Structures are given as C-alpha cells and as structure tokens.
C-alpha cells in the first residue's frame, strides 16, 4: 500500500482516493477534520437539496423539465418501495430516498475529474450498510418479537435439514452488511482505478494513445451507468431487507 501511494508518486491510480485535511479539527482526541471527503459529502447534500427544492419550486400543476426530474426521482423511489415492500413501505420512504440520493450524489460527483468519490471508501459504505442492517434487525424484532427468529428457518424445509440450513441462513443474514457495503465500495474503487490506469496509457502511447482514449470514453459512459446502478442496488436491497423484516418470508 505504502508503495502505491508514495513510491508511485503522481501516477498512482490510488492517489485519487487519498483523504486530505482541509480544516483540521480535533475534538476530545478524535480527529474530526473537515477533509476532501467531507467537502464532497456536503456538496452532495447541498446539490441534492437544491435540485429537489428548487426543482419543485412553487409546485406547478404542469411541471417543467426540472420539476419533472425532481418528481421523477421521487416517483422512482416510491415505485421501488411499492413493488418491493408494498403499501406498508410508505413509512420508510424518506430514509430510502435519502440513502439513494446520498449515494447517487456521491457516485455522480465522483465522475467529475479531480473530484473525490466518498462512496469509494469502505468505512463510509460500511457505516451506511451497518446502520441499515441494525435498523432492519431492530425493525424485525419490533414487528414480530421472538418470532423474528423463525426468519432463519427456511419455510417448507424438513426438520432434519434444519441443523444445516439454519447456520447457513444466519451466516447469510450477517453477511448482508458486508456484501452491501463491499459491493458499492468495490464498484467505485475498481471503476475509478481502471479509468485512471487506462488514462495513464494515453500519454505514454503517443499516437496510439487514441485507443486507450476511446476506451476511457466508453468506460466513462459505463461508469455513469454504474454510478446510478449501485445507488439503485443499495436502495433496492435496503427495501428487500425491510420487506424481510416486515413480512418475514
């Protein structure tokens, strides 16, 4: 690791993920500095809020382009919840909408050259996934009490299979926050690293650099798709977990 950061110098493809303190802040021995990561979180929240609030504006009966986009993002998540959870899912709309907008903004801001992608840090995605995991587990116990444990017993399985199936179900349940966070983090990390690596070939290859250049253009398009898709995947998996907690099987 140290080699990639320092030995590789300016050309290290991982340099873009480096955290830099902008305003050092130390509270009770904890380093809570305002960093480039914090800056893009604040930017993401500000842009998402402005996009939605200004987009809706006075709430015209016949929406303009901007208002349509704001309404579209709302209806997109509303439909997602209706399809995965059903009518009971309305209560979870704000949290899922926030998760989607936050991750989507993080991914999209990361597509700007020289910017920082806060969703490419495992700690950020893991905290979000862990909060979702703890949240749906608490929700399951609140809704069903001890009966929630029956979630680990696959329905219709014969009893002699239980000693095998129940540990598998429990492992799969506890691996949820890991898969949820690693999926988003790894996609962002891999995509941005790949772009950087291929882009570094452009200057080296001279005229033939047109090939990696074309590849970078194509991959950038793909990365925009992945930026949206990973936010969508995070939101839909959260919905599915909430659905499991509400309806068990």
């Amino acid at each position, binding site marked *: *690791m140290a080699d*990639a*950061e320092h030995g590789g110098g300016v050309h290290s493809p*991982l340099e873009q*993920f*480096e*955290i830099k303190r902008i305003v050092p*802040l130390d509270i009770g021995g*904890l*380093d*809570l*500095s*305002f*960093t480039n*990561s*914090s800056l893009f*979180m*604040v930017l*993401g*929240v500000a842009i*998402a*809020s402005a996009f*939605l*609030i200004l987009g*809706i504006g006075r*709430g*015209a*009966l016949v*929406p303009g382009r901007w*208002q349509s986009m*704001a*309404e579209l993002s*709302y*209806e997109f998540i509303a439909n997602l919840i209706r399809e995965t959870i059903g009518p009971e899912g309305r209560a979870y*709309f*704000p*949290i899922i*909408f*926030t998760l989607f*907008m*936050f991750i989507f903004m993080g991914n999209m801001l990361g597509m700007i050259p020289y910017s920082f992608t*806060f969703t*490419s*840090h*495992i*700690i*950020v995605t893991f*905290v*979000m996934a862990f909060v979702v995991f703890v949240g749906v587990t608490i929700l399951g116990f609140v809704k069903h009490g001890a009966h929630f444990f029956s979630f680990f017993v696959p329905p219709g399985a014969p009893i002699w299979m239980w000693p095998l199936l129940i540990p598998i179900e429990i492992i799969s349940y506890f691996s949820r926050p890991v898969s949820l966070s690693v999926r988003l*983090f790894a996609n962002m*990390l891999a995509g941005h690293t790949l772009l950087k690596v291929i882009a570094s070939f452009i200057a080296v290859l001279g005229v033939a650099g047109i090939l990696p250049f074309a590849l970078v253009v194509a991959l950038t398009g793909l990365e925009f798709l992945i930026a949206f898709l990973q936010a969508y995947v995070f939101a839909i998996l959260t919905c599915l977990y909430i659905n499991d907690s509400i309806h068990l099987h």
Partner: protein
Amino acid sequence: MPQLEPWSYMSQIFWLVITFITLYFVLSKVVVPRITSVLEARQEKIEDDLGRAERLRVEAEQVLEEYNKALDDARSEAQGLLKQSAEEMAAHAANRNEAVGADLAARNREAEGRIAEARRQALDNIKPAAAEVAAAALAKLVGGTPDQAKVAQAVDSVSAESQG
C-alpha cells in the same frame, strides 16, 4: 491504500452522519411533503376535470334531448295549426257557400214573386180589356148588348184556366 488508513475513519464517520442526517431532514421535512402535495393536487385536478367533463357530457345529452323534444313539439303544434286552419277555412267556405246559396235562393224567390205579381197585374189589367173586346166581339157577332157581368165572368174563368 487510502481506504485502509484508520486515522481518517472517525472524521469520515462524523461527517457522514452529519451530512446524511441533514439530507434526511431536508428530504423528509421539506421535499417529500412538497412533492406529495404537488402530486396529490395534480391527481385531484385530473379527477376533478374528468368529473366535470362527465357532468358536461350528461348535460349536453340532456340539452340535446330537450332540443329534440322541443322540435317534436313544435312540429306537432305546426301540424295541429295547419289542420285547424284547414278546418276553419273549410268551415268558412261552407258557411259562405250556404250564405250565398241562401241569398241567391231568397233573391230567386223574390224575383219569382215579382214575376208572378207582374203577371197577375198584367192579367188583371188585361181582364177589363178582354171583357170589352169579348163584349164588342159578341155584339158584332151576335148583336145586342151582352150582359157585362157574364162576359167578365166568362173571361175570368178562361184566364183562370189558362193560368191554372
């Protein structure tokens, strides 16, 4: 690898929590109620318009029905009037026919009366002359003076016969 440098974890978690909660409050307190109300208002407006269109359609059908009814009424009324005036005219013509006929008959009778009167007068006037002529003829033929009264009587009976 910058992702595995623990010094930044507290800072990242701290700012993640702050920004995420901020976005959550902005969305749940401002954006969601607003968009919900806009979408509901639009839905209401659409339903309202559909309802009004339906009402207007029913109203238009009613008006059409009334119009057709009025048209039928007017048509039957016109036919009634036509029939009535035809009857009136026929009655009027019959009346006049009758009146003219009666008038003509009256005048006919009057004229006949006058003719009869004129005839009687003429006969009356002729009677003395006839008696005289008869007397004179008798005197010439028979000689002597015939009885005036008998001559007159004979003339009367003859004229009555001819008149008969």
